[in-house]
């Protein structure tokens, strides 16, 4: 026991003596740190602070949050929005990842002799479009008056949220595709050839060799998607408006936040309730990230290739 502790002390002692904090690092980090603190950290902390105060500026503790719990005035809207958020995420997780992976595999296959770059760019291009454009185009395509389907997909409570989720998947499928593609092209051919020599079928090669190598990336993509989906607002707002119809069936926390903070039509905006919803969003996202970090990232095996 004692020996080890003295040993570490010695090590630490020598390291501090030899290693001095390089000043240029501060110069490099400084501007970014200052800007990030001013425009991200401070507003975030201030928003957390605001959620503990009433609109009149009096400290109310957690009373604002009680409105979100069963019995509170925002309770039904909040839990509806949270549920919709998770449905929105589920669609992305269950559709975007497999489709993205499938496209990435197709792109790395030798079946595709020509135009690989073109396809890659085409599939990725919706990602860089403005959400407003995507929403508008799809609204026209799906319009029962001028569009190609007569079913009012965006107007029925049962289909509106899945339709919007798939619109968003269509737009962003390029991102998981690119991530998976990057991993797939990085897998050495010898591994696959060796497996083939051992008599493994294509299916076995995918599940036993490629898929385990993809798992860490799947986690990263999922957590990025989770954060983006829980923060989503723009698509719903541009297609369905702030009231997220029909019958609040597409209302997510972003639109609920917008209505509570800025108000809507005759509804007066409330800084306190807006900050409260924003804080709740922050907590939900934080919980998700923690689950990822401790439940997934620590357990999944990463292979050095």
């Amino acid at each position, binding site marked *: 026991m004692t020996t080890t502790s003295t040993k570490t002390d010695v090590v630490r002692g020598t390291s501090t003596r030899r290693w001095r904090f390089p000043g240029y690092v501060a110069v490099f980090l400084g501007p970014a740190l200052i800007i990030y603190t001013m425009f991200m950290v401070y507003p975030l902390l201030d928003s957390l602070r605001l959620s503990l105060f009433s609109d009149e500026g009096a400290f109310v503790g957690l009373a604002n949050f009680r409105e979100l719990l069963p019995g509170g*005035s*925002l309770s039904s*809207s909040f839990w509806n929005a949270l549920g919709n958020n998770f449905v929105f995420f589920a669609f992305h997780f269950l559709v975007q990842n497999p489709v993205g992976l499938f496209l990435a595999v197709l792109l790395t296959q030798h079946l595709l002799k*020509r*135009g690989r*770059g*073109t396809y890659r*760019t*085409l599939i990725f*291009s919706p990602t*860089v*479009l*403005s959400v*407003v*454009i995507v929403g508008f185009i799809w*609204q026209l395509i*799906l*319009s*029962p*008056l*001028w569009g190609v389907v*007569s*079913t*009012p*997909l*965006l*107007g*029925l*409570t049962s289909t509106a949220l899945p339709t919007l989720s798939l619109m968003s998947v269509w737009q962003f499928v390029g991102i998981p595709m690119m991530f998976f593609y990057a991993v797939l092209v990085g897998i050495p051919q010898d591994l696959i050839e060796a497996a083939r020599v051992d008599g493994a079928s294509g299916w076995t090669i995918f599940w036993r060799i490629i898929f385990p190598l993809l798992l860490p990336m799947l986690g990263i993509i999922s957590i990025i998607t989770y954060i983006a989906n829980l923060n989503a607002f723009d698509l719903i707002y541009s297609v*369905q*408006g*702030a*009231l997220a*119809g*029909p*019958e*609040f069936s597409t209302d997510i926390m972003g639109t609920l936040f*917008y*209505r509570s903070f*800025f*108000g*809507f*039509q*005759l*509804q*007066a*905006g409330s800084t306190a309730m807006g900050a409260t919803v924003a804080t709740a969003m922050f907590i939900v996202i934080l919980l998700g990230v923690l689950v990822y970090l401790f439940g997934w990232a620590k357990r999944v095996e990463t292979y050095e290739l």
Partner: protein
Amino acid sequence: MKRTFTWMIAIVAVLLIAAACSSDDSSDTTAAGGDETTTTAAGGDETTTTAAGGDETTTTAASGDTVELVIESWRNDDLAIWEDTIIPAFEAQNPNIKVSFAPTAPAEYNAVLQGRLEGGTAGDLITCRPFDASLDLYDAGHLADITDLPGMENFSSVAQSAWITDDGTQKFCVPMASVIHGFIYNADAFAEVGVDVPTTEDEFFAALDAIKADGTYDALAMGTADQWEAATMGFQNIGPNYWKGEEGRIGLIEGTEKFTDQQYVDTYNTLARWADYMPGGFEAIAYPDSQALFTLGGAAIYPAGSWEIGLFNEQAEFAMGAFKPPVKAAGDTCYISDHTDIALGLNAASPNADAAKTFLSWVASDEFASMYANSLPGFFSLSNHEVTMDDPLAQEFLSWRGDCESTIRNSYQILSRGEPNLENELWAVSATVINSTATPEAGTAILQEGLEAWYPPQQSG
């Protein structure tokens, strides 16, 4: 080859983004446009200013006492009328005051305005939404008290009711216009199908049946995707005949009537029948879609507000007429929604309060009333001045004021102050009832429950 193609796609993508961004930019430029002209106007005096030591007060004095006023508004449709007609008329009489009209999209107006007022960047003149939205701004000290403004005597107390404090002592906006609900119809289609203009509910549905049976036209041009049409052009349009206008509206405020009462359930029962006559897939048809459907001649009847007149006159190439919300039985007293909709107030933080008051007094004048009503047919002056209008459709709407009892939308005064917000719920419930995902009874129960959650007069009863 492959590379070039990739680059081309990348460039197209960038162009698309640029296009998306530039549309944002252009609205900014319009808003900022006014400021730029000031700079140019003051430009000639720049040397003087520098000589005077760059003192700010000197700058204002040096630029010939020209004051720049900015009007905040949600009426972006009216931009051309303000810039080409109204503002030049005012500036001709007041050469020292320059006015610019800086509208925001209607759906974003409240939020944007709130932000600008709090940040101190809002314009001098604020277009006022009726009732609580403006009252809140007044209570927060953003709107100035203009009770004593010369010209306010030109408005009746009903006209002013939407922009006064609850005790009625302080006024904070000059009423500009009201809008009237009703139905606009395609007269050519009516003649072709052979239906008469309906006055009673039975005639109304008979006409709808005839148009539907004929099949050339969609009977009713309306969708429920945006929800507010269901509430505004549906519920608030035909409802006053059921709840007897002001009687019912005051009853709800005082707690003597409930949303679960028969008259409200009946309103929704009638509204639910509309679904059969609306275009297929109406659940996903948005407001601009139904406007286009009607003006392109695809539908026979458009449940309307008078504010549509200007656009419809411009776009529709067929004869149009209007009829008021049909009554239950011939000879019944009719009620119309003659809603106080728009007013103009003074930003309490405006540095140009005197010039702004000059403008507001002019807004209260005979000249403005007539100019506004005629350049924006469908926005009816709230002043006591005699205004003659040329537009036949607007005249038709206005003539109902003589035949019927006027009321305003029942959710606007007091009742939308709490959470859950009544107006938001009305939108959702009205759309749901037409979509027949809720029965009229269930819908009105939701409204009543929401009101009882926070509004004391409804709790005791």
